[in-house]
């Protein structure tokens, strides 16, 4: 329909909107309605909450860690030996670094005096974790078992410096800085893979549940019958699915550019992180593609589930197993990252629902591109099957009963059995 008069003629002449045009009408309505709703603001702010919680938890954790680390070693020796030990500790600190425990003066003893370290520590007073007694030549360390093992060498090093200040000499070690190593690259790519999987999972779950809420709201508003009477139910299904995909693109664009701006302002660059196997640009492109596939797969399941339910409570009952199953799938894909080249990884790549997660991880870990082309083709095929099956179930079940029937109580058994029964024999 190239022009307005043509379209008007076609309206007068009857016919029906094509599935794609009808889906566009539904998607356009849903997209604009969600985009200009208050809920969308919360949707955009959504990722801030976990980030804020993580930052808060990290800060509190660090505070607790610093408060809860009684790492002081007390020195109880003759006065001059105490001074020698503390001075030696300062010299050794430059050499050893933060692994060296803090040392404090506990008691300056008279010559020949003794100190009962065991009794002092047993009294559980102060923040001392260990006590060094004796002399720098013959130091004695009193502490719990773990700390004895950790600090024995350190105390010996400090005592040696205290015994003969300036006697120890160590050769200078020349250093050469490298960008990465096999070990650090693997670790970094593993982190990228896990981060990518987690982000993908959170995005897909968030959007799939939003599309479900949208459908339930529509059933609650009794609009579904108007849609069902005017356009094919497949188009309603597709329209809703793609509207939420559009919303997610807007969300990701906002979150991505905000995150990029924050990182850039903070002087952080992607080059600070391990380069994914396929490189950052391709990784982002593949992430977007796998997000689309994963969302369409799960979204079609959630929409089909929504078509079976008449109330929010029924939706919760029915979507819970789907959600739990998807969490299991996510764990499975996460586990598969640790089995590179093994049957676990190949199973995760082949199983439609875990395939996007497994392949995002592979994009982070491995350089090869062709497996992604293969996986995307397989996932596209699965998407077509899932969307077709979901739309078919949706069409059959969403308008199954009359107004009173839809409101009435239906047993879970009836709902579930409805999923497997072809209740409509077309008489067209």
């Amino acid at each position, binding site marked *: 329909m190239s022009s307005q008069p043509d379209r008007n003629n*076609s309206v007068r002449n009857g016919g029906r909107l094509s599935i794609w045009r009808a889906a566009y009408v539904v998607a356009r*309505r849903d997209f604009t309605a969600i985009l200009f*709703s208050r809920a969308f603001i919360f949707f955009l702010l959504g990722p801030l909450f976990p980030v804020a919680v993580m930052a808060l938890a990290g800060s509190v954790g660090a505070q607790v860690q610093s408060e809860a680390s009684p790492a002081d070693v007390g020195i109880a020796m003759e006065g001059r030996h105490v001074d020698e030990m503390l001075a030696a500790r300062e010299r050794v600190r430059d050499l050893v670094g933060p692994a060296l425990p803090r040392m404090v003066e506990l008691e300056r003893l008279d010559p020949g005096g003794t100190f009962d370290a065991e009794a002092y520590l047993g009294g559980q007073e102060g923040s001392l974790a260990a006590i060094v007694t004796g002399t720098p030549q013959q130091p004695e360390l009193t502490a719990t078992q773990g700390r004895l093992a950790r600090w024995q060498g350190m105390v010996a090093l400090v005592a040696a410096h205290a015994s003969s200040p300036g006697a120890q000499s160590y050769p200078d070690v020349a250093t050469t800085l490298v960008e990465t190593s096999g070990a650090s690259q693997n670790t970094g790519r593993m982190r990228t893979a896990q981060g990518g999987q987690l982000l993908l999972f959170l995005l897909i779950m968030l959007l799939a549940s939003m599309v479900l809420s949208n459908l339930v709201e529509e059933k609650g508003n009794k609009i579904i019958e*108007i849609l069902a009477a*005017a356009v094919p139910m497949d188009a309603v299904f597709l329209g809703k699915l793609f509207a939420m995909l559009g919303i997610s693109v807007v969300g990701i664009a906002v979150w991505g550019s905000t995150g990029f701006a924050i990182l850039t302002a903070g002087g952080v660059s992607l080059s600070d992180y391990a380069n994914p196997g396929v490189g950052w640009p391709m990784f982002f492109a593949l992430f977007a593609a796998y997000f689309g596939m994963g969302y369409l797969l799960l979204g079609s399941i959630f929409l089909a589930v929504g078509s079976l339910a008449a109330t929010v409570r029924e939706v919760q009952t029915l979507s819970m197993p789907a959600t739990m199953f998807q969490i299991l799938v996510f764990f499975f894909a996460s586990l598969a990252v640790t089995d590179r080249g093994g049957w676990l990884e190949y199973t995760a790549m082949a199983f439609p629902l875990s395939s996007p997660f497994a392949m995002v991880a592979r994009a982070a870990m491995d350089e090869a591109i062709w497996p992604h082309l293969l996986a995307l083709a397989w996932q596209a095929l699965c998407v077509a099957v899932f969307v077709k099956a979901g739309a078919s179930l949706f069409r059959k079940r969403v308008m199954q009963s009359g107004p009173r029937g839809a409101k009435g109580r239906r047993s879970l058994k009836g709902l579930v059995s409805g999923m497997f029964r072809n209740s409509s024999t077309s*008489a067209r």
Partner: protein
Amino acid sequence: MATGDFSNHMAATGNLAIEAHGLVKRFDGVLAVDGVDIAVPEGAIYGILGPNGAGKTTSLRMLLGIIDPDEGYRRVLGAQNPQDVARRIGYLPEERGLYPSMKAYEAIGFMGALRGLPLEQGRERGKVLMEEHGLGHAVEKQIRQLSKGMAQTVQLLGTLVHEPKLVVLDEPFSGLDAINQGKLEGLIRGLADNGTTVIFSTHVIAHAERLCENIAIIAGGKVPYAGSVEEARDRIPAQVRLETRNTDGPWRAALPQGARRNGAFWDFPLPESGVEPLLKALIEGEAGIQSLSIERAGLHDAFVAIAGEAAARDMVAQEAGDAA
């Protein structure tokens, strides 16, 4: 209606906007509609009468292609698949539904877009239609800000915005006050005057009696009668009301069996022999006729005779519920 009757009826009515035969629908094994036959002539106002739960909504949904029948045949505006002519149909469901956050004219435009009308054109028409129906002040208001009656009117306008050839209204009078019911009746007549076929379901017999030439009575998922209102009324004889000076006498033999005394009056169906033999017998039997009136049966009486007392009682109870 037997198959032969159905075919004859269709042949007699000429072009049909809707023809359906033997529609059957089961939900979870429960029979909701059992062999519905309907023939709606083009340009007619056609009523489907029946109490709630009789199968009206399910029948309409099958005619519209929202759900498929398990058995039977249907043809709507010449198409076997009603969705193939969706752009020429307007449908107002029983359960009214609009997006609460949409503005009124946007809602009308959206409903038009679903039927193939360009969105902007639908919105412009929506504004015009609202002005024409006295809702100009509410054009920019969100649906949630409208009263129930106004929202219903907006939805009705959305049903008509694409100028359909067939308008299907499921319980359109439900929830409207008397004034708005009158306006809706006028609107339906206007549509029919312009050649639009209107089919509506109702449990209020008076609406069908005032508006329709043809009706289908549906009860318990079956259609015991489909045809003209006149034929339905002719199915039961006219009612005679007689007032006499004499309380007894030979004239009593002229009264048919089942005549009921009601004070000074006698009520009974007009005998098949007609009014003249009756009058002659009454006069010769010295009844002393004070008054005698013959009233043609109303659609309510016809409904009772066709669908049964129980269905009629349900209809009256639902009507009373609506009024309350």
